[in-house]
């Protein structure tokens, strides 16, 4: 009995830590989506598909052109940032004053365009970087090096965004603009430019997430489906547009998935996470951190 408990505790601790590591990347994804929603008031349904394109970019640069991972990564971030700006310019900007459902449908359309484009262009094969990162053994616990790296990089990315948002005037304007677009323009701010910058930033975060996820997952045209929905749930649970709420919700979800997976299969972890989400929507419909009315 005692021996069983010892082993159980070790596994539990391992699962908790793995949950934290998973939470880092989920928090990064949620931050990108929240940024777009919080500032532009638009939901990019196709956010995870931008990540998918970024993963393909990593795959081709590393596997096909033989670039090193650390050289390919900045290019990927830049590429997806451009893609984000382009998405805003071509799809969102003309619909900025349209009803939200139109914006939602338009970005939903982009989701299918990107998925279909990837299917036609790259085929439906599962591809991977061919990089096998070692597993770190820490006492009796095992951690994937890829997860640890992702967690740290996601953390650095989030801190960089935080500093940008609080220490620069551009970031200050971006934080405030959603409250009153008209006044922002009358303070001399070119609001169109702010939106392009925000979209590029959101895209850049998707690009960074792509660089990290490609270490752990195979790329295929529908890979976005494996983390797109959960990113949305995290954002909604944290309160759409609420950066801190999204950050906390990411770790709550990651722990539920990780601990749920410990007791049974990983899929049950997801079932628990979604069930938790449904219950929370009844208890706190406006998000974890929402003030009670």
């Amino acid at each position, binding site marked *: 009995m005692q021996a069983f408990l010892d082993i159980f505790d070790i596994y539990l601790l391992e699962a908790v830590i793995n949950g934290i590591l998973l939470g880092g990347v989920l928090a990064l994804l949620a931050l990108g989506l929240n940024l777009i929603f919080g500032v532009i008031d638009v939901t990019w349904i196709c956010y995870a598909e931008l990540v998918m394109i970024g993963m393909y970019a990593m795959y081709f640069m590393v596997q096909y052109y033989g670039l090193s991972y650390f050289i390919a990564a900045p290019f990927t971030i830049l590429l997806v940032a451009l893609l984000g700006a382009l998405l805003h310019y071509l799809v969102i900007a003309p619909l900025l004053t349209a009803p939200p459902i139109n914006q939602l449908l338009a970005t939903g359309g982009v989701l299918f365009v990107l998925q279909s484009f990837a299917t036609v262009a790259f085929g439906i094969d599962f591809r991977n970087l061919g990089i096998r990162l070692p597993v770190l053994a820490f006492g009796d616990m095992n951690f994937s090096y890829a997860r640890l790296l992702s967690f740290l990089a996601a953390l650095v990315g989030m801190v960089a965004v935080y500093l940008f948002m609080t220490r620069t*005037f551009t970031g*200050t*304007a971006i*934080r*405030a603009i959603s*409250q*009153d677009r*008209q*006044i922002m*323009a*009358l*303070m*001399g*701010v*070119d*609001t169109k430019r702010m939106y392009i910058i925000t979209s590029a930033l959101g895209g850049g975060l998707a690009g960074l997430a792509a660089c990290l996820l490609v270490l752990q997952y195979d790329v295929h045209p529908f890979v976005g489906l494996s983390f797109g929905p959960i990113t949305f749930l995290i954002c909604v649970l944290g309160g759409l547009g609420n950066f801190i709420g999204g950050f906390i919700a990411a770790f709550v979800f990651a722990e539920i998935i990780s601990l749920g997976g410990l007791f049974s299969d990983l899929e049950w972890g997801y079932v628990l996470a979604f069930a938790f989400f449904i219950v929370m929507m009844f208890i706190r419909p406006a998000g974890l951190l929402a003030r009670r009315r």
Partner: protein
Amino acid sequence: MLEVSGLVKRFGGFKAVNNVSFRVDQGEILGLIGPNGSGKSTIFNMLSGTLPPTSGSILFAGHEIAGLAPHRIINRGIGRTFQIPRPFRKLTIFENVALAGFYGQGRHSRVKAEEAAERALAMVGLPTDRHASVDGLGAAGLKKLELAKALATAPKLLLADESLGGLDEAEMDQAAEMLRKIRDELGITIIWVEHIMGVLMRVVDRVMVLDHGEKISEGLPSAVASDPRVIEVYLGTDAETTQAAAAEARRRAGV
């Protein structure tokens, strides 16, 4: 400095502003009065670029600015305050003003922006403390913040929109004095839109009166206040104020 001619704004079949022309000279304070819905705010919106005019011309310092985007007009030197203060509540007082300084001056310099913010806050009498929150401000404080934001953009012309609504008597006098001080010390030309005639009449150099989108009177405060068309417009709605203002203006003119 500002030359407006034949300004028209139509909303569907409704003419909110109908063929209004006026000019503002360097260093002047022009009062713009009129009942609700007379087109004052529409004129301000066109001057600041929030609404494009249907037709007409707005020459500012010799350049046509009608229809330019708001941020371009601000960068040319037209600042604006709002009737209802609209501060960014997520930002501190200082951030609100410094942001206006950063983008409004068109130079995008952090040092210049922070200097402008400190000067503007000191001018209107708000704390220059960087962490003070907007939530601590009352009605008068929020009006001052509006003014500081506009001043931080280093305007040559200030559009002050009904600066005194919601203030008590003493605060009103203070605010009117503030506008005069801004003109005298900073050399900023001002157009002041107001419901309340009394205080305005004491400070402005000239007044223009609008009714139903048309200019019905323009001139020295004393002359405008005794103009029968103006009295007719204000009778019934605001007669007492008008008469008080007229008496006040006559008293001043008689000196």
